[in-house]
């Protein structure tokens, strides 16, 4: 036992290697199971639906650990009665439990870390963000005549996601600026149910980005 504790870095590194080897397989399997359990939630913060689902697993693990200790103490005491009174052994048992528990927690949370890195990138939030960023780049490249833009949306600009999308377009379009419709060269219709109904007479729809998104350019600039 003493030897085991003195080589803690070796234990940790060994466990870390096993952990990294298992991760790629386990993460996918585990996440599939988790998402089916919770009804397919998105990972955008530290919680799933405002709770950490692993708290139950931690509790189970702590219970299993306590039961394991009791078993070890009982067996060892049965073999040698002096074991029961040796306080140092209890301390070491608890410490080894902490190390094991820490690895269990580490394992579960690194899976979450990989989820954020691999799985979430292909779904939320990065994939959708990347889509918007690509759209902005496309509009800028295809319509260099647009020196200023107007932003039209059915979303409220005082709360997310409208506020965030407005700022995202504003940032990526800069140094081209966002102005009122009357002063702008082009209009960005974003999440607009009927953009063709709201398009002013002096503009024409130049590009449909999706069912609710489009770009309109002032007619005199297209001629």
């Amino acid at each position, binding site marked *: 036992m003493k030897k085991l*504790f003195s080589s803690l870095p070796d234990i*940790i590194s*060994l466990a870390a290697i096993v952990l990294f080897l298992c991760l790629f397989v386990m993460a996918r399997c585990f996440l599939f199971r988790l998402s089916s359990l919770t009804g397919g939630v998105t990972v955008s913060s*530290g919680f799933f639906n405002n709770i950490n689902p692993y708290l139950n697993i931690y509790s189970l693990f702590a219970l299993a650990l306590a039961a394991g200790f009791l078993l070890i103490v009982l067996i060892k005491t049965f073999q040698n009665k002096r074991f029961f009174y040796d306080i140092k052994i209890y301390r070491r048992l608890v410490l080894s439990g*902490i190390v094991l528990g820490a690895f269990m927690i*580490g394992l579960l*949370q690194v899976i*979450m870390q990989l989820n954020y890195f691999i799985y979430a990138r292909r779904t939320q939030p990065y994939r959708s963000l990347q889509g918007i960023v690509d759209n902005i780049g496309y509009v800028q490249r295809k319509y260099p005549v647009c020196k200023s833009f107007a932003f039209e949306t059915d979303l409220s600009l005082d709360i997310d996601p409208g506020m965030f999308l407005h*700022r995202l377009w504003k940032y990526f379009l800069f140094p081209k600026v966002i102005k009122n419709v009357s002063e702008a060269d082009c209009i960005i219709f974003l999440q607009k149910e009927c953009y063709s109904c709201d398009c002013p007479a002096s503009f024409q729809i130049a590009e449909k980005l999706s069912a609710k998104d489009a770009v309109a350019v002032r007619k005199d600039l297209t001629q």
Partner: protein
Amino acid sequence: MITVGLLIVILLPSLLGTFVLTPFLMGLKINMFLRFSLGSGLGWGIISLWIFLLGAFGLPMNLAAINLPLILIALFLLPFQRRGVSRAGQPRLSSFKTKNISFSDISLASILFCCVVYSLISNLKFVPISSWDGISTIAFKAKFFFYEGTFSFNKDLPHASYPLLVPLVMMWEALNYGQWHEYLTKFVFFNYFLNTLLLVYGFLLHLLDKRWALMGTTLMCFANYFILHSYIVYRDLPLAFYTCSAILLILLWKMNQKDSLLVIAGIFSGLGAFTKLEGMGYCFIEIVLILYLSGIQFNMLKKPGIFKSIGFNILRFLLPVMIILGSYFIFKMAFHVPFGEGGKTEMTIAFDLFLRVPVVAGAFVKNLFGTIYWNWNWYLLAACFLFSFNRLRQMERNLLTAIYLFFLADAALFLLTPNYRYLLVENFDVLLPRLILHFFPLAPILTTLMLNRIFVKER
């Protein structure tokens, strides 16, 4: 152009900062990792302050005006470098030393390498500037300064009161690349990530040995939130680097009794305050820590001349802080920029002050132990503390005091300012984990020191 720019961005801050740092560390036994990490962070800070001075005086903020004087300073300091580096061995807390590179060293180093490569690729290829604060404030300001070449409109930009270190260094990067690059301008965040890793590794190597230092750094890398902030555009990781550097330098000052370390700690603290508004609050924490370490800790107040000594220590620390912050305050007055942020920085004694205490405490517990952000770092720290709270070494006690002070300061922020509302919203982790990140690197350091004491001393 971009490749040359990237080379300048990589080399200039590191060399300049390391060269400037050398006279302060003269005669000290500091390993090269710690030296390089502190130097690089200082270099980025010097560049931002230089651009800030140019902009504040209405001078042109172009590449020649920024880079040439800095390169000249670096060249001037170059001959003094060999004299400042001490190659002698260093005293360590642990007598346990590893002689050869072992399997565990390689495995721990490969985990670190994976994290660093992941962060680099995410920065330069996968994740564009798309975080809320990035697009609305930090990168937006940097892009604005890059295209306009002036600070004149700063008061009209969103969150004008926010300090400018990160926008200015992003602008400097873009100037070097010759264009505004949506991915490469984030290189500064990778740099701070790497610097923080080297800071923790270097500090642990200063006290323990290579294997334990690697273990502590790996512990830090397991924290999801720390890795996440290495490639999204927030100012919390740079602030974490400056804050933890200042704290660790104060602890090194206590160990080595070298007063110049307090001056560097002051510079880092000032740079922290120039990174984010919270940095100003952290200056007070550092002052309290200096007071604690100067005399109160050892009940030495009866010692003759102790008050004079404490006064000088505080002055050494405060002078650089006041120079950096003072110049920024003068700039704010001259450019009509507000000092604080409405609804965020004003102090209020709320009628429900005492009712807030359990909510704040609960939020801390839930964030530290219930989220996926920190991995098992806080669990491990709590467990180590439970097993050794009455047998802490001096360095561990000092680190623990610093962490306590940060918790108190963050709790006060929620109790005494309108920021309490961030704990009441459904997704309450908007602000709190970012505050915890500012001092998080201290946790794996303390954990490693405690684990080392618990396990190695039994040999």
